[in-house]
């Protein structure tokens, strides 16, 4: 039987507010345990939450970016359950009236096909603390630094049909939240975490199969692997006559498998009810309009503009627009050199390669966008050839020179296009290579094309790489053929 995979994602995005969602404690990552936990974060008796306005603004900006409805009123609810790292015995979340309503996100797949994934809603909630099981000899340590960190949980519709689509969706969300600057998107530090709902059904069926929820998948790669494993498990189970049960599973990246955590029967009854300590959040149109004016150009719009106005390929536009920093770097380089295609090639080629080799992010690049643009400009106007350009790039990377022009000047890399000068070098090479000239002359005419490479190499060497290679080629052919 042919099977179809159905996937929905719940993405938890840690918002980049300075303080927590309901207290003034810092949200900085990596501090000593429990040094960023106030009376409110500890759930001390008598303490009360006060909503962080910045978290609201960030959630709304996300909603605007995914063209979502923003309801006038949203309400915080309490999700009640006991756990040692959940200080109050409930998580303050939004169950019935989330801050962001239905929206959609466009994803781009490898074959440049785009697809719209609907967002069911997004809601604000507080993160829990962490339970530390090591170093306590059979006991558990509790670190509440993370407790109360604002999260935006983005819940998709079950619109994805493959692991690739799920990963593309997650990348699109990552791209949007980092564009907006509402999250650092750092998955390794848990700034973005993902629960994956997976089910399978016979191809063509209308009804959904029973789904399993895979908790806490924290990288793009793991999302694909967890789904691949889970889909295979479910299909095998059904084909062997079994039934998928609704359950929560955990992905184990070490073993590349998912394991059952709890079934529906064991599931908590969270007893959601409106939090009486917080007022409903009421947003008026003027506030939304104001936030709209603060929105940057978003990935999808940038992609379209790169294609339509700058003439980039769909592939280039997509790669460059995915990261705001890369897109901005590219645009700045393009502004300087005026050639979008060249700028795109350099950013994705030479620059990305060098950054990857040294494991640097684009904002850490030793070559600035201005410098790269200046370099490309000299390639485009013929001042240097491609080979010299790579040398200039390397020099800029190593900090030898403030601009491409400086490097070209100091290293004498300016391309020689003066025919007289090139001819003089050719004459000298021919004079110094009697044996090779003889071979050339005696060769079959169809072999001579290959043999010319030697002379080109010698002339380029004599010019220290600065001679215009096309001119060298043409003139050499003329001169050698004249000797026949």
């Amino acid at each position, binding site marked *: 039987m042919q099977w179809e995979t159905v996937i929905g994602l719940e993405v938890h995005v840690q918002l980049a507010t300075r303080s927590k969602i309901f207290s003034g404690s810092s949200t900085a990552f990596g501090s000593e345990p429990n040094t960023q936990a106030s*009376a409110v974060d*500890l*759930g*001390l*008796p*008598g*303490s*009360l*939450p*006060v*909503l962080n306005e910045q978290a609201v603004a960030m959630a709304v900006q996300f909603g605007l970016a995914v063209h979502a409805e923003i309801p006038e009123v949203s309400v915080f609810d*309490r999700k*009640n359950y*006991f756990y*040692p790292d959940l*200080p*109050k*015995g*409930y998580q303050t979340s939004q169950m019935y009236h989330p801050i962001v309503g239905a929206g959609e996100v466009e994803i781009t797949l490898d074959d440049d096909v785009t697809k719209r994934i609907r967002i069911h809603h997004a809601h604000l909630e507080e993160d829990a603390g962490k339970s530390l099981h090591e170093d306590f000899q059979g006991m558990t340590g*509790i670190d509440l630094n993370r407790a109360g960190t604002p999260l935006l949980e983005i819940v998709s519709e079950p619109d994805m049909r493959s692991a690739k689509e799920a990963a593309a969706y997650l990348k699109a969300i990552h791209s949007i939240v980092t564009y907006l600057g509402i999250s650092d998107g750092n998955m390794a530090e848990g700034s973005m975490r993902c629960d994956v709902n997976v089910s399978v059904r016979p191809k063509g069926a209308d009804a959904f199969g029973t789904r399993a929820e895979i908790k806490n998948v924290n990288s793009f790669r793991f999302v694909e692997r967890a789904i691949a494993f889970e889909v295979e498990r479910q299909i095998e189970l059904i084909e062997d006559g079994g039934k998928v049960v609704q359950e929560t599973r955990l992905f184990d990246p070490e073993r590349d498998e998912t394991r059952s955590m709890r079934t529906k029967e064991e599931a908590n*009854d969270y*007893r*959601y*009810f409106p939090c*009486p*300590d*917080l*007022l409903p959040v009421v947003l008026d149109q003027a506030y939304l309009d104001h936030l709209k004016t603060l929105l940057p150009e978003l990935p999808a719009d940038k992609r379209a503009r790169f294609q339509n106005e700058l003439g980039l390929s769909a592939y280039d536009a997509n790669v460059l627009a995915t990261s705001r920093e890369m897109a901005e770097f590219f645009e700045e380089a393009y502004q300087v050199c005026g050639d979008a295609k060249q700028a795109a090639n350099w950013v994705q080629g030479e620059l990305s390669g060098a950054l990857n080799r040294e494991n640097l992010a684009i904002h850490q690049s030793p070559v600035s966008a201005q410098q790269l643009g200046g370099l490309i400009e000299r390639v485009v106007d013929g001042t240097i050839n491609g080979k010299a350009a790579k040398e200039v790039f390397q020099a800029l990377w190593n900090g030898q020179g403030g601009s491409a022009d400086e490097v070209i000047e100091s290293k004498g890399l300016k391309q020689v296009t003066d025919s007289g000068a090139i001819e003089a070098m050719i004459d000298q090479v021919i004079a110094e290579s009697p044996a090779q000239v003889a071979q050339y002359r005696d060769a079959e005419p169809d072999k001579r094309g290959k043999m010319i490479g030697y002379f080109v190499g010698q002339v380029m060497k004599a010019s220290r790489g600065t001679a215009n290679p096309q001119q060298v080629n043409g003139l050499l052919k003329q001169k050698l053929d004249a000797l026949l």
Partner: protein
Amino acid sequence: MHDQTVTQLAAALKSGELSSREITAHYLQRIERLDDKLNSFISVTAERALNAAEAADKARADGHAHALAGIPLALKDIFCTQSVKTSCGSKMLDNFVAPYDATVVEKLEAAHTVSLGKTNMDEFAMGSSNENSHYGPVKNPWDLKAVPGGSSGGSAAAVAAGLVPAALGTDTGGSIRQPAAFCGITGLKPTYGRVSRYGMIAYASSLDQAGPMARSASDCAHLMNVIAGHDVRDSTSAARGVPDYTENLDAPLSGLKIGLPKEYFGDGLDADVERAVREAVRVYESLGATVREVSLPHTHYAIPAYYVIAPAEASSNLSRFDGVRFGHRCEDPKDLIDLYTRTRQEGFGEEVKRRILIGTHTLSEGFFDAYYIKAQKVRRLIRQDFLDAFEDVDVLMGPAAPTTAFNLGAKKDPVSMYLQDIYTIAVNLAGIPGISVPAGFAHGRPVGLQILGTHFAEAQLLNVAHQFQQATDWHRHLPALAEENA
């Protein structure tokens, strides 16, 4: 001195006739001598109080003192106080010292009032008799066989016995007004949101409200001037200006329109209590007020709605008492579930457990709509009843409780105890203010007249109550115990 009101003591402090140290020492002695009989205090902080009194005297001498500087007060043991235990009447918090002060405590300290200690209460403010305290029941100073009411029973008994001139209580379903009535003092429950809840241990967050308990309406007005106001740390506190509550106390009442809710004078109301209340209403008529009967048609739904909403919130509010970070923790837990189970089994009393169970049940899947959502609809109807009534009248009057103080141990059945709050609970559901003032005696025990106003009408209620106290002297009566010299 102990029969003096805050207003009188403040005048004596201002004139230099008395020092705060003298007043404070006097009340501390009275606590020392009489509280064994009453059990109204959980913690008495004598040394701190004397130090605070000296600081207040100094502030007065320096000439920049608040009107209440040096006045001794007591705090219900539900308000968090830095470096003094805050037990909330529970074994669960018998070892709990908060690392911060409640907003009202901060405000009272900033005004240089002097806290003598923390008063006894029903555990987590759940109760109407003060019999649900881990620290034992409080006795009514008018008759030691009787309860003082609850849950602010310690504050009420201490003020009535002259152990302290005034105290703070909290009122979730009548917990200021009913004990004030039972002990013959004046107690105001302000509008929900008028006084900050920050640092006040939550029972039912949407209903809880702190307020003053004192010998007179004028005293309550002085205290309201200190404690009322918006607090950025409490999102539910009202962001609106605070009037001077003493300013309007002397306004005449001619033309005041009083409504008597017919539902507050029906079955279950003690005939002698009713007689005292109707007599008080006649006093108002003599002061120029007009009286008419009104109806609050949804009154009989108030108790059921309250016992859905309050336990629901409580079940969640009390989840934080899990033995992990503070408070009681059971010995040698064998695993996490054992830690939770035994900690909570040992730390909470019967009534608290009952309400957690009720609340957990009503919030459960399959019951939530039928109970919680329904109760919220009822709550809106009850609120509307009051708003409709205030279209026609200025204030409502009736009894604060259906009977006078009952005997300790008299109400074994929880439902009969819950019915104690029949006239007070709807007020919390509606969020409006209410005050109980002494209005005579029945069966030798005090009767409280309850006066209700619309949202944020505290100044009017205090004026109406004060005028009654100008025309009567019920609030000046002291129990025999207060006069004992032994």
